[in-house]
C-alpha cells in the first residue's frame, strides 16, 4: 500500500510509491486488454468526481477507471465562476461528504485547492489538477508510458517543451521524473519559464534543436490559444517557428525521438499533425495508460484489498 492517504502532488512523493503505482498500472493495463474489462476490486466504494473546471479526457479517464474497478461514482461539475458567487467551496465539499463517500477526485482552478479540501473532509483526495500547481495522475501516466517504451526511467533524458510556468503537467512531471532518476530539460519562451528554477533540479535551454539532440523523449505541452498574439506569445507562426515540433525540424535530426503530448493538441501550433500521427508519437498509448494508472491509484488508495483480476 502507499505511504500517503491522499495523492495531492508529486513534490516529495516517495519514489518507491511511484514505482508501485506504475507496476500496479501495468497489471491493470493487462485487464484492459481482456474481453471483459472489469474487476470487482472497488465494489462498494463510492467516489465523487468533483470538477470545478472543464475537463473532458481526465474526467472520462477517471470515470472509466472507476467503472472498470466496479466502484460507484457520482459526478459533480461547476464552473469556478458559479463557485465564487454561490455556495462556498467548504459547503460544497462538506455536503458531498455528508452523503457518505469514500474518495474525491477533484479538479480545481486554484493552486492548493486539493490540500485545502483535506482540511474540510475525511475522504481520500486525489488531485486531478489544481490550477497551475500539480496534476500528479497525468505525470504518473506519462512516466508509465516512458517506462513502457524504454523499460526504465532512471537515466532517461526528457525534454518538456512549451508554457512551463502555467503548466501543472510540467511541474508534476518535473517532480516525478527527477525523483525517479530521469534528467529533465525544459524549453520554451523565456517569459513562460519560471524565474526561479533553483530546487527544481532541471536544466533550461531555449534552443529546441539542442534539446532534441539531447533528449530521449519530448513531452510537448499544449500552448493555450488564448495566449496567442496577445501578451505572452507574439504570434502563432513565431511560436511554431521557434518551439513547434514540426516534421521538418525532426527531419533535420537523425535520431529516434519519442514524442508525448498530454492533450488536447493544437495541431499545427505546438505539434504538427504528421508528427502526432507518426510512429514515434505515443500519445494514444498515454491515453490508454491514463486509465490503467488511474485504476492503480484508485485501487492502491481506496484500500482495495482484493487481488488484481480477482473474479
Amino acid at each position, binding site marked *: 500500500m502507499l505511504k500517503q492517504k491522499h495523492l495531492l502532488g508529486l513534490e516529495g512523493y516517495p519514489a518507491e510509491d511511484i514505482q508501485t503505482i506504475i507496476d500496479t498500472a501495468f497489471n491493470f493495463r493487462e485487464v484492459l486488454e481482456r474481453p471483459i474489462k472489469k474487476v470487482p476490486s472497488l465494489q462498494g466504494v463510492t467516489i465523487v468526481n468533483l470538477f470545478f473546471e472543464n475537463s473532458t479526457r481526465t474526467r472520462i479517464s477517471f470515470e472509466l477507471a472507476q467503472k472498470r474497478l466496479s466502484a460507484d461514482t457520482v459526478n459533480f461539475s461547476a464552473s469556478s465562476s458559479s463557485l465564487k458567487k454561490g455556495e462556498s467551496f*467548504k459547503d460544497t465539499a462538506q455536503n458531498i461528504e455528508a452523503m457518505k463517500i469514500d474518495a474525491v477526485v477533484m479538479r480545481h482552478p486554484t*493552486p*492548493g*485547492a486539493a490540500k*485545502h479540501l483535506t482540511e474540510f473532509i475525511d475522504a481520500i483526495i486525489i488531485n486531478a489538477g489544481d490550477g497551475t500547481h500539480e496534476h500528479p495522475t497525468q505525470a504518473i501516466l506519462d512516466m508509465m508510458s516512458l517506462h513502457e517504451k524504454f523499460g526504465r526511467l532512471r537515466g532517461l533524458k526528457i525534454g518538456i517543451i512549451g508554457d512551463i510556468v502555467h503548466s501543472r503537467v510540467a511541474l508534476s512531471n518535473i517532480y516525478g521524473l527527477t525523483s525517479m532518476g530521469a534528467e529533465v530539460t525544459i524549453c520554451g519562451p523565456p517569459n513562460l519559464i519560471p524565474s526561479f528554477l533553483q530546487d527544481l533540479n532541471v536544466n533550461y535551454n531555449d534552443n529546441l534543436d539542442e534539446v532534441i539532440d539531447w533528449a530521449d523523449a519530448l513531452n510537448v505541452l499544449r500552448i493555450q490559444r488564448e495566449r496567442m498574439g496577445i501578451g505572452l506569445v507574439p504570434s502563432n507562426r513565431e511560436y511554431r517557428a521557434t518551439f513547434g515540433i514540426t516534421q521538418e525540424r525532426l527531419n533535420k535530426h537523425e535520431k529516434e525521438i519519442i514524442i508525448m503530448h498530454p492533450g488536447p493538441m493544437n495541431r499545427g501550433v505546438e505539434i504538427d499533425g504528421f508528427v502526432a500521427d507518426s510512429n514515434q508519437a505515443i500519445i494514444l498509448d498515454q491515453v490508454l495508460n491514463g486509465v490503467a494508472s488511474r485504476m492503480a491509484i484508485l485501487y492502491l488508495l481506496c484500500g482495495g484489498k482484493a487481488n488484481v483480476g480477482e473474479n
Partner: protein
Amino acid sequence: MSLKNLSKHTVLKAGTLLDPYNKRTYRADLWIKDGFIESIGEFNAPKSAEIIDCKGKIITHGFCDLHVHFREPGREDKETLDTGSLSAMAGGFTRVCVMPNTNPPLDSPEMMNFIKEKAEKCPIHIHPIGAVTKAQNGKDITEMALMFKEGAVAFSDDGLPIQDGAVMRIALEYSTLVGVPVINHAEDECLRSEGLMHEGIISTHLGLPGNPDLAESAMVHRDLELADFTGAKLHVPHVSSAKAVQHIRTMKRKNNNITSEVTPHHLFFNDEALRSYDTNLKVAPPIRTESDREVLIKAVKDGTIDCIATDHAPHTLEDKETTFDCASFGMIGLESAFGVVNKVLVQESGMELIDLISLLTVNPRKIMGFDSDLFSEGAMAEITVIDPDRDWTFDKDHIHSKSGNSPFIGKDLKGTVELTISTNSIYKSQIIK
C-alpha cells in the same frame, strides 16, 4: 471582562520604569490620579489608592500603532472602533491611527469627525488617517486642509496603491500645506499582476502566481524621488523587501522627511511558511524570503526602518476559509505584536529592549507629531506594563479582535503585555497568568 475603569488613584509599585523618550531605565513607583500621571518616584498616595504590584515587570509608554484597519464604517462584522480598542489594549497599544479604506472611505472632513466622535467613547486614542484621493479613486485629491483641521494625522489610500505618478506628485505637493505624512501602499499593480504570494522558489513549487519584490521596490523608488522633489513628508508602510530597504536607506542619507515602518509578520515569517497554503499568510505586500527578512531586521537595527506597525487587518472566517485566490489579503496583529517583535529583534537578533520599545512608542509618535514625553507629571496616562522574558504560546483565547485571522496561533512567542492603562481604562491580562 478584562477591561475596567481606572480607580481614582492607582499606584504601580515596585516596577522598573523604562522611559524611551529620555532613554532611562530606573526603579520607581508611579502614581496615576484621575487618568493623569500625578507623580513618579517618592510620593504619598492616599490609602484608598489601588496598588498594583509590578515587581519584576517593566513599566513603559503605551504603544502606538500608526497602521490599523478598524473597518468602521462599513464592515462592523470584521471590527469596530470598540473591539479594535480592546484588541489594541490587549497588545499594549494605547494609541492607533486607522486607515481610511472603509465603506464609505474616510475621505472628507465629515468622515474625520465621525471617527473623532466615536473615538471619544473608546478606551484608547484613535486618530483617523484621511484618504489621499476622493473615494480612493486614485485621481482626485481630497480636502486635505479641512480634513487636517478635523483631525487627520496623515493621508493614505492604503490597500489601493496610487498608480499614477502625477497624482502622487500632486498629493505630495499639496500635503506640504498641512505638513503631515503621505503614506502610499507601495506596489506597482501592473508588476504585481495576479500575484498572490512572493515570486520566488516557493511560489514556483506551489504553482501560485508570484508577486515580485520589484513591484514594491520600483514603487518605493518612485515615491522617494517624488517626495524628495516636492519636499513633502513620505512614510513608507509595511516595507517587505531588501530592494525597497536599499532605496529607503539611500534616500534617508540626504532627506529627513522620509520614514518607514515594518510589520511584525514580515519580521517573523518567510515565504517557506506559505507551503501550508494558509490563507492567513496571504498579505499585501507578501511575506518574502528569508534573506529579505534578514535585511528587514538589519534595517530596523540601523534605523533605516523607524517603527513597528501591525497593519492589523481583520477579516471574517468566510473571507479566509476559502481557496487561496479568493481569500482576502491581511491578518490581525495587535495582540501578538509585542511577543513577536521582542522574540525576533531582542531575543534572536540581540537588539536592546529600550531600542525595541522606541520602535513601538517614541518613533511612531514622532512620525505622526504626537507628544512622546509620556513619563512627565501631568501627562495623560498611556502606560504599558510588560514582562519581556515570559515565554508563551499565542492562541485563540488571546484574541480580542472581532476577527481571528492570525497565522501566529500556535506560535511560541517571547514577552507578554501584562497591563495596559489608557486615560481612564485599565486592561489586565488574565489568560497569560
